[in-house]
């Protein structure tokens, strides 16, 4: 008998009565005003990569893996802290975003002990796979990307 798996929408539901219409990865979606882009995408079945967001907490935009592109807006805002707005055109999967996410993940792993196999927090082994990819990924372990010096210990 397995665990009950519940869909985690990433951020809390909005209670607004007003709906906004937007486009995410070419799909039209209508969500209550105040809904995050991450939740709007999740309602379409699109899982935006994330480490820090969960729908039982207020979003705080810390992990920088849920970065998305929005037409007409500069930079790459986090999907968990950006509310959906009327007429928005959002992309959650582009080669540029994939490269940025890989870069952010590479920075995390560069300052993290490589003990995923023995780590109690990693029961699902998903981080092991991610860490292995970051270390041995397309470009291999990069000079400076994996360092003996920890940021925390200065």
């Amino acid at each position, binding site marked *: 008998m397995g665990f009950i798996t519940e869909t985690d929408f990433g951020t809390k539901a909005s209670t607004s009565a007003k709906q906004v219409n937007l486009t995410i990865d070419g799909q039209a979606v209508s969500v209550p005003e105040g809904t995050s882009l991450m939740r709007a995408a999740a309602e379409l079945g699109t899982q935006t990569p994330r480490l820090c967001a969960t729908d039982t907490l207020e979003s705080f935009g810390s*992990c*920088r893996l849920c970065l998305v592109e929005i037409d007409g807006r500069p930079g*790459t805002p*986090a999907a968990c802290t950006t509310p959906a707005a009327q007429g928005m055109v959002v992309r959650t999967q582009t080669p540029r975003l994939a490269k940025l*996410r890989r*870069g952010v993940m590479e*920075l995390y792993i560069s300052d993290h002990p490589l003990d995923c196999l023995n780590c109690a927090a990693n029961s699902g082994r998903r981080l092991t796979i991610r860490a292995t990819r970051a270390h041995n990924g397309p470009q291999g372990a990069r000079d400076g990307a994996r360092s003996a010096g920890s*940021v925390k210990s*200065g």
Partner: protein
Amino acid sequence: MLIEADPYCLIEGMAIAGLAVGATRGAEVLAHIAAGQNVAANTALLLDLCETMKFGSLCALGGFTPHPVTSALRLFPEDFGGTPLVAAAE
């Protein structure tokens, strides 16, 4: 100069992954370049890191820190093993 500038960001950005970790790795890569190790590969890595920091940082300091680095790479290539830009006419 650049290597000295980075520790400031470490102090300011302790809690912020993009800035704190990025600036640490940036200072390390700059030190490697300054020491003449794998200059071409490390310069490419540094540009890659700058791009990640510009668009991946939570805070504006993390987004801005790479700018002087990319400016130096663009305008003073001789400091990174490249050929100097042609000087402006006097």
